[in-house]
């Protein structure tokens, strides 16, 4: 029994989860304090609504949580994957944006049967993401340009380019947004609309989860993933091992861009009224990529849960408006939660330490633990 506990405690996934939960818990407490300061009367009921998240709005609410989760998983994966291999793809925003455009154009301009239209649009979108990510990848691999700076630049280029292209090619001037995509290009619901009526959740969710599992397998179960993680953890050692880092940098960026592109495509093929808004501001969703990735410890499966959590808070937070908390409060609470999630690493270390001590004590008792 004790051995079992020790085993669980020493399990990495358990440590990670517990650490994330602790930081979330602390974040929520601080969030509640913030709410009390702003609106004492509404704080508690508002807080409860936020905690209930999507559940307080029935099946539709849960569906909406899943819908918001979908792109978050993918953008989080894109960043987390790059983190694991030693890169920082801060260009997810640009890749997402350009992919969104391609999805909209293929979905809105071309005519195809429903069974393949969305697939074609999605492929186009991910390829666009790939191309956009290739630039920083190549610059880093061959010109030693920091991917952070080239990604920031590529983000702005994507922003203005897409603003112009949407305006020129598929524009609805009454709303300053992109025109509708065709119904055939919308992501199929695959029965999700009967489970969660009134929500926008769609098969993109499955794609996102499958991608997370694929990335997990790629990173941890394949030889290629092994070489990628080597590069991420120790550049020199991977060189020593004969791993082609230049090639890996490029491939990582391409895969990361592919995932980001998928996110952009799926989001803008989710609902007929989800259109690209021309604006000088970046799209919201990829902005969560960094927190989602880090809250999920850059682990593909962790990222599924961190996305769910953030989506849950987004929905719950929006419902808080009914309790006198304007959207800005929701923004503050989410940010506070994310700030605390930055601490999860410390909690992880604490958990690990505790686990070690626990098993050490146990081993001393049973003397089965071989200490050096």
């Amino acid at each position, binding site marked *: 029994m004790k051995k079992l506990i020790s085993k669980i405690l020493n399990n990495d996934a358990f440590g990670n989860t517990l650490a994330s939960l602790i930081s979330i818990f602390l974040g929520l407490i601080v969030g509640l304090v913030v709410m009390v300061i*702003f609106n004492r009367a509404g704080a508690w009921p508002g807080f409860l609504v936020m905690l209930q998240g999507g559940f307080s709005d029935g099946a539709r609410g849960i569906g909406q949580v899943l819908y918001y989760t979908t792109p978050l998983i993918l953008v989080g994966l894109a960043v987390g994957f790059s983190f694991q291999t030693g890169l920082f793809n801060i260009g997810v925003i640009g890749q997402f944006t350009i992919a969104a455009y391609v999805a909209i154009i293929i979905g809105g301009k071309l005519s195809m049967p429903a069974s393949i239209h969305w697939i074609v649009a999605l492929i186009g979108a991910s390829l666009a993401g790939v191309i956009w990510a290739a630039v920083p990848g190549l610059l880093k691999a061959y010109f030693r340009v920091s991917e952070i700076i080239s990604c920031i630049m590529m983000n702005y*280029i994507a922003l203005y380019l897409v603003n112009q292209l949407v305006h020129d090619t598929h524009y609805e001037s009454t709303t300053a947004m992109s025109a509708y995509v065709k119904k055939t290009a919308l992501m199929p619901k695959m029965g999700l609309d009967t489970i969660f009526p009134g929500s926008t959740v769609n098969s993109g969710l499955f794609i996102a989860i499958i991608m997370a599992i694929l990335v997990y397998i790629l990173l941890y179960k394949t030889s290629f993933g092994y070489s990628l993680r080597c590069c991420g953890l120790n550049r020199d050692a991977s060189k020593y091992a004969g791993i082609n880092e230049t090639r890996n940098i490029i491939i990582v960026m391409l895969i990361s861009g592919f995932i980001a592109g998928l996110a952009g495509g799926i989001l803008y093929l989710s609902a007929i009224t989800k259109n690209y808004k021309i604006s000088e501001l970046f799209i919201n969703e990829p902005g969560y990529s960094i927190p989602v990735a880090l*809250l999920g410890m850059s682990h593909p499966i962790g990222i599924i849960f961190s996305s769910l959590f953030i989506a849950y808070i987004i929905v719950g937070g929006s419902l808080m408006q009914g309790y006198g908390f304007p959207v800005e409060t929701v*923004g503050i609470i989410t940010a*506070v939660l994310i*700030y605390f999630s930055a601490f999860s690493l410390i909690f992880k270390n604490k958990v690990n330490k505790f686990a070690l001590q626990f098993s050490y004590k146990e081993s001393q008792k049973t003397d089965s633990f071989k200490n050096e």
Partner: protein
Amino acid sequence: MDTITFIFHQMLNFSIPLLIVALGGMFSSRCGIINIGLDGIMIIGALASFMFIRYAEGYISSQTLLLLAILVSIVSGMIFSLLHAFASINLKANQIISGQALNMIAPAFSVFVARLFIGDSIISFKNTFMIEEIPFLSQIPVLGDLLFKNIYLTTYLGLLVLWASHFVLYKTRFGLRLRACGEYPQAPDSVGIDVQKIRYIGVLISGGLSGLGGLVFVLPNSTNFNGTVSGYGFLALAVMILGQWQPSKIFFASLFFGTLKTMSAIYSGIPFFNTLGIPGNYYKLMPYLITVIVLILGPKSLAGPKAEGLPFEKGMS
């Protein structure tokens, strides 16, 4: 001549805040802490100083008011950056996520606070801060027009910050220690220098300068502050990298970028560009595209401060 003066002054509107904030970012990087929360700190600096201006407006003369506002922006930026310092230095949290959290808190916080205190998320101010002419100096040919007419106190402040950054970093004891902490904290630690303290100060300086940058950014460009600095904190980060973490190069990088931004914004005032009929978005993306090209062609060193982003535990070898 007039056009050049005009372009120069417009360029300052872009370059000076970028310069100040990038220098701020540099201080943080140089002590070993990545600060991607510059954008958020700018917002808080602007928020505090414009709240102050709003309340103090009319009671004191405008340049004094501006000086005090500058102080407020610096102090508020410092206070806000404490969140980042605490997370990354004391708690050894992930520095990127904590910085990003600042970026997410700031705009919402700004709108909320403004509404709480003045019932309005947008803080209007009367811009009485431009110095039309500095006696005598403005008579100097060429320079007089460029530097001593229609200019803001903050421009001089930016140049002062540039000089001071260089001086502090390379000529003072503190600068030596700061750089050591960013390169190899074990070294200063082993000679009894308090690495955590130095890093705190580094992050605080970055906070102070970013806060100031927020004020300087909004001042000539608007008549109110509405809770955003349009992502200039991220551009400042790029300028810092482009400037390879060195004050002088950061200066040139900010001038370079500011000039490109100016050109891309004012093309419509120049008849030639108008007749080309190229949509504005293409002009807007030009500075970024050119920067990418410069990155490919230009000299490059990826080498930031070596210990940047790595938490430091006392006594670790």
